[in-house]
């Protein structure tokens, strides 16, 4: 059967191997997350019909709306209906707005992605930069970096966000306090509206990456191959960036994956502080009003993002580490 990928290729080609493994893991993960969502939300006292009609409607009216929304069916049947459609890319409709869930999410996805990717980039650049710098300088600078990392860990993001608004939006009118400007409306406005939220979300990422990078760099810098590179006259720039950073980054990358999953959750809080119309705030409002299709849809999107992050981390690891690449 020519269309079946050769087994040896699957085993030998590490990129294929990683992609297969991650996709194989994504399927049960998506099933678990979406099924959990359905089961949990169906356990909830009160349902969407009551939320929509209020408490004054007659039992017949509730029943009619339940039938119309498919809420009279058993949970597994509701889930099965949802799943059948989900496989064709249709995540159903919001119970309240009657908009397709994919459309509802699509409107808000750019906001969350801008915030999330912005924070990832800032965390990576600033965090790794600080970590390398403090590893090379050592002494007081290293200790200062450690203390900064501890403080970064300890400040709650929602509070930092509020304080940043006080300082940079209220006291010094440099950035807007809340709200989001679409990139298609104004590039400058978009950047401007993202500065404070991205800083807020990045703080934790910067702190944790700086600490990890510093430790990994110190470890690698004391290894025998770095000593031999010095001994054989390889210039400092090359030792630090070509050899030490490359090997340290293998460890930093794995931490980066876990951090990215954490930051994704952090977007929920940061969107709330800065009143950004993203997936997180949609999630919170939908969860409180039992809009199951929307909650399930967002859970699927978040899970897909986590799968994508893990895949990217695995691929980066394969690219960085030749021992994984050739086996």
């Amino acid at each position: 059967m020519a269309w079946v990928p050769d087994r040896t290729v699957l085993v030998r080609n590490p990129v294929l191997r990683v992609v297969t493994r991650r996709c194989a893991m994504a399927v049960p993960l998506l099933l678990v997350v979406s099924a959990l969502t359905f089961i949990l939300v169906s356990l909830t006292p009160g349902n969407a019909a009551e939320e929509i009609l209020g408490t004054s409607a007659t039992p017949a009216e509730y029943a009619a709306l339940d039938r119309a929304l498919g809420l009279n069916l058993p949970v597994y049947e509701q889930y099965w209906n949802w799943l059948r459609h989900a496989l064709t890319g249709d995540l159903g409709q919001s119970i309240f707005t009657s908009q397709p869930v994919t459309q509802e999410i699509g409107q808000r996805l750019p906001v969350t992605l801008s915030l999330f990717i912005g924070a990832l980039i800032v965390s990576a650049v600033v965090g790794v930069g600080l970590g390398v710098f403090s590893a090379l300088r050592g002494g007081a600078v290293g200790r200062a970096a450690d203390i900064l990392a501890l403080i970064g860990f300890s400040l709650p993001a929602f509070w930092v966000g509020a304080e940043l608004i006080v300082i940079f939006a209220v006291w010094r009118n440099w950035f807007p306090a809340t709200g989001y400007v679409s990139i298609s409306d104004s590039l400058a406005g978009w950047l401007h509206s993202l500065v404070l939220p991205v800083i807020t979300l990045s703080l934790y990422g910067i702190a944790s990456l700086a600490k990890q990078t510093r430790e990994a760099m110190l470890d690698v810098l004391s290894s025998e191959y770095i000593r031999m590179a010095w001994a054989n006259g390889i210039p400092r720039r090359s030792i630090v960036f070509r050899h030490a950073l490359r090997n340290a980054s293998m460890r930093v990358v794995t931490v980066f994956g876990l951090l990215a999953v954490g930051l994704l959750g952090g977007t929920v809080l940061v969107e709330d502080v800065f009143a950004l119309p993203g997936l997180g705030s949609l999630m919170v409002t939908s969860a409180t009003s039992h809009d199951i299709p929307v909650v399930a849809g967002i859970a699927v999107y978040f899970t897909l993002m986590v799968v994508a992050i893990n895949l990217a981390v695995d691929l980066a690891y394969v690219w960085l580490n030749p021992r994984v690449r050739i086996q």
Partner: protein
Amino acid sequence: MSFFRRLLRRPVAVVCFAYLAALVGIAVVAPIAMPSVETQNAGDLFGANLLPGWSHLLGTDTLGRDVLARLLVGDRVTLVGVAEALITVLVLGVPLGLAAGYRGGWTDRVVTWLADLTFSLPAVVIIIVVLSVFPGSMLAGMVTFGVIAAPDLMRVVRSATLPVREELYIKAAEASGLSGTYILTRHVLSRISGVVIARASLLAAAALGLQTGLAFLNLLVAAPAPSWGGMVADGTSVLLLHPWLIASPGAAIAVTMLALSIFGDAVRDAAVEGWSPAVTRRRQALKSAAPGAAAPAEGRLLAVEHLGVSFPGGEGDLRVVEDVTFDVAAGEIVGIVGESGCGKSVTAAAVIGLLPGAGRIDGGSVWFAGTDLARARDAELGPIRGRKIAFVSQEPMASLDPAYRVGAQIEEALRCHRGLSRAGARARAIELLRDMHFADPAAVARRYPHELSGGMAQRVGIARALAGEPQLLIADEPTTALDVTVQAEILELLRELQLTRRMAVLIVTHDWGVVADLCDRVVVMYAGQVVERADVRPIFDSPLHPYTEALLASNPHLAPEAATLPVIPGTVPPPGSWPAGCRFSARCRYSVAACTELAVAIEAAGGAHETRCLRHDQLARA
């Protein structure tokens, strides 16, 4: 010293622990002492939004309620949430981690797979879904967090259990028929408790962050009951008017998180006794001029004179090399011989200014081509390393960067030292590898270090060292880590290279066979000093130091077959416990009273033969 005693010696840990204990006390007492705060919807509305003052130490909120009272009462709900999460984490994480680490096999694989799956879950999203089902139920939210965070503790417990399991006393307990559960709770758990507390402390900080975050989103605590996160939320809604309202609850959260993370770090450091952070490499050049400093006579390529090396220790500097003098002429092979711990490798590393850790040259000089390397700045040393003096490691596999193909590593050296183009460097690298007797040098160049055997890696290491066409090659025990047959190949290669390239070699070894095979001259070191220096023939024929004699007698290559191999009684005294007199006297069979009285100087004993022995005359006649 027990783990808790070590912890108590750290003031930071004690302060953090005291603060956390005080918080627990407040959580118990405050709601009892101030029962009205929990249900108070509004205080004195005319005294709302007061700044901190005497009647209200932290001011009042928009409804005129005292901020300090709310902060103290809100402490309870915050800590209860953290406790709920923490108990879940411990109940799940510790037994699963112990089982995975102790039993291994299938248990380990299943648990690890589940953990991997959990790491791919967007935690906050799941918790919000759970809270939509159980509205306002902090227990549900925090237990869910505990379940999602448990694999993190599980991994820590698992990797801490793995090594403990291999230890002798555990094996002994198993052999004596004690049950697995008993061993785990009684022996393993007590050993890993430090690591568990450290990790649990950090997870508690995460749980605190989550609890306050969810309270901030108004998903946990119903108004008017106070909570720290809820107070920040209240303050945020009037942020533009009363920006100071979020300051005190925010500070309470931050300080508590800080206390938990610092406490966790301190516990970890106390648990991992003997672990010390690596020190960044910063070479300290000698500042003072050498006494009677003058470049040595022509003909000597390297002249090490009265070299001293010390490392910073617990009680002041620790001297590990003292008054070491020897030289190497152009094109000759000199061996440094001695047992482990005599300072041979340190001496070799000191020559090119690459002492490990915070070691430094604290006396003497290292003359090379008219420059004193002991006093050279980094900028002067740089051009010498690789181009004039190259170095071959005693750990061939570890000496190559695992991330790059070996060809690329040789090319890098070629481009640095010879200024070759990319293509030129590639061709020259393959030529160098061919000189190392690789049958297919182009194929070897494409390999990564982990695809080489030890002998191949060492030949690659030598090829890289030769890239800059050095005048002196320092080889630090180049064959110690290799198989016997491969050792011979490497030595053969070194001799051939030395002949064809007229390159001097300084070789550090404990193997007399290497000396006999290769060297023109020998330097014998003992306890940080040179004890004998001579041409290779006289060393073997008539050693003039009892240590050399004993070392030769215990050499398997030279001993008559079937004879019992004599060993030198005792061990090399470690740095810091060197005797005042002759350092070998305690192990020497010729030792007399005079030997232990005063330090012994090295002196000429005819020709180029020098020895550090008071009785070398008698030794020569014996």
